[in-house]
């Protein structure tokens, strides 16, 4: 298992840089990964991140569309916050596994 120091903390990550233990996640880590992904995190970002962390903790699968139907944000807005590949980027910044919904 690879390890990485993010925001001064050693965390376990996959080869692609996804945290393997969501409990190691902090707001500071999110801000740091956000920088690597060229995303400047705002309160709205954190609202979405907390939503997907919560869903992940409940073991529920997620897609861009289900986040878009969550009532927190629509799909266009989700793309606006995490440009390019919103689900993958948001998952990485939220400290959860790479989305497994694409099976």
């Amino acid at each position, binding site marked *: 298992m690879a390890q990485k120091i993010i925001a001064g903390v050693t965390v376990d990550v996959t080869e692609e840089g996804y945290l393997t233990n969501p409990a190691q996640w902090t707001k500071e880590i999110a801000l740091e990964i956000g920088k690597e992904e060229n995303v400047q995190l705002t309160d709205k970002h954190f609202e979405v991140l907390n939503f997907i962390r919560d869903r992940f903790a409940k*073991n*529920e*699968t997620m*897609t861009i569309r289900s986040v878009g*139907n969550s009532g927190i944000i629509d*799909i266009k807005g989700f*793309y606006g916050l995490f440009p390019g590949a919103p689900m993958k980027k948001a998952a990485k910044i939220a400290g959860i596994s790479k989305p*497994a*919904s*694409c099976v």
Partner: protein
Amino acid sequence: MKKLLILGAGTGGTIMANKIRKLLSLDEWEITIIDHQKTHYYQPGFLFVPFGMYSREDVMKPKANFLPMGVELIFQEIDTIRASDNQVVLNDGKALKYDFLIIATGTRVVPEETPGLLGPLWHKQIFDFYTIEGAMALCDFFKTWPGGELVLNIADMPIKCPVAPLEFVMFADAFFVERGLRNKVNISYVTPLSGAFTKPRASKVLGKLLEEKNIHIIPDFYLERVDNEKKVLVSYDEREVPFDCLVTVPVHKGDPMAGRSGLADEMDFIKVHKYTLQNEQFPNIFVIGDAGNFPTSKAGSVVHFQADVLNENLMCAIEGRPLTGSFDGHSNCYIETGFGKGALIDFNYDTEPLPGLFPFPGVGPFGLLKESRMNHYGKVMFRWIYWHILLKGKEMPIDSKMTMAGKKM
């Protein structure tokens, strides 16, 4: 009398009716299966219809033919499941009580989720091949099409049989080569995924195959709408892909009844434990196949492997024992690659598709993650196996648990 209700007489419901019928005494149990459609479609066959390889008759048979004696079949729409009352309410208002419930209501394509998809070009220049109507309309269209931009788009994941769109473009390549039109047809594969497939090693192998066949992959494209006037696909990040013929794999959802009954996620897929197949809120409800929110492929092979586990766990639950069956996410897909060849992949929740030989280690006859003629014959033979063995719940020489034997790391 105790009552077992099965919702849906498709692949999962039919297999379960056949299997469980042998285990439950008809002196003690009433088994009822409910569906609103009388025809059973062999859905893997839809892929062959646009290219004239299968006709409508090749892929349809009456559902009633595949259900055993002693199982009551009701054709009626289901309105809601009242899980707290152990009741299913039908559209005509009739309520059916159950002791145990199996939900096998599958998934459906929802083109209306994407603005413009059902516009003026629907079934004129825009087609789906996940319904018999779409596949037949596309077959007619291809008969006289002079060529142009052929675009295959997957609107969103998950979809039924995630390899079918790949097979479609490879069949299209072969079809237009054989018609002498390939130089007039440009084929693009436009997908929300980052590559040809969801799993890294298979994605690499399949991506290379597409490249060899001069099929262009446009990855990370998440469809927002279809502009019928300009004939372009538009993504959420405002990229455009022009088409002359668009073959869409629309957004998939579960049965709206599941959503109405409060048992499902936003996409109407029923919340279910991925190992036990049991609903976590209501332990007398089990789910099989595409209807559930399982993180594995929505495919007939998955249903077939789940059926063994469901059989075991349902009997445990009925007899008041702890559930001993555990589904590992096993999926197994033949992939048609055109020109009489095919590939095969075998994987589960934790292990991605690997090269090797299948089902007998070191022997085969099928080769994993590579093209061969034998793999194509496997797919062709499968239609017979489906109608005569699989639906009837009979044994096949493939274990429901994935094995590493015969696979190369």
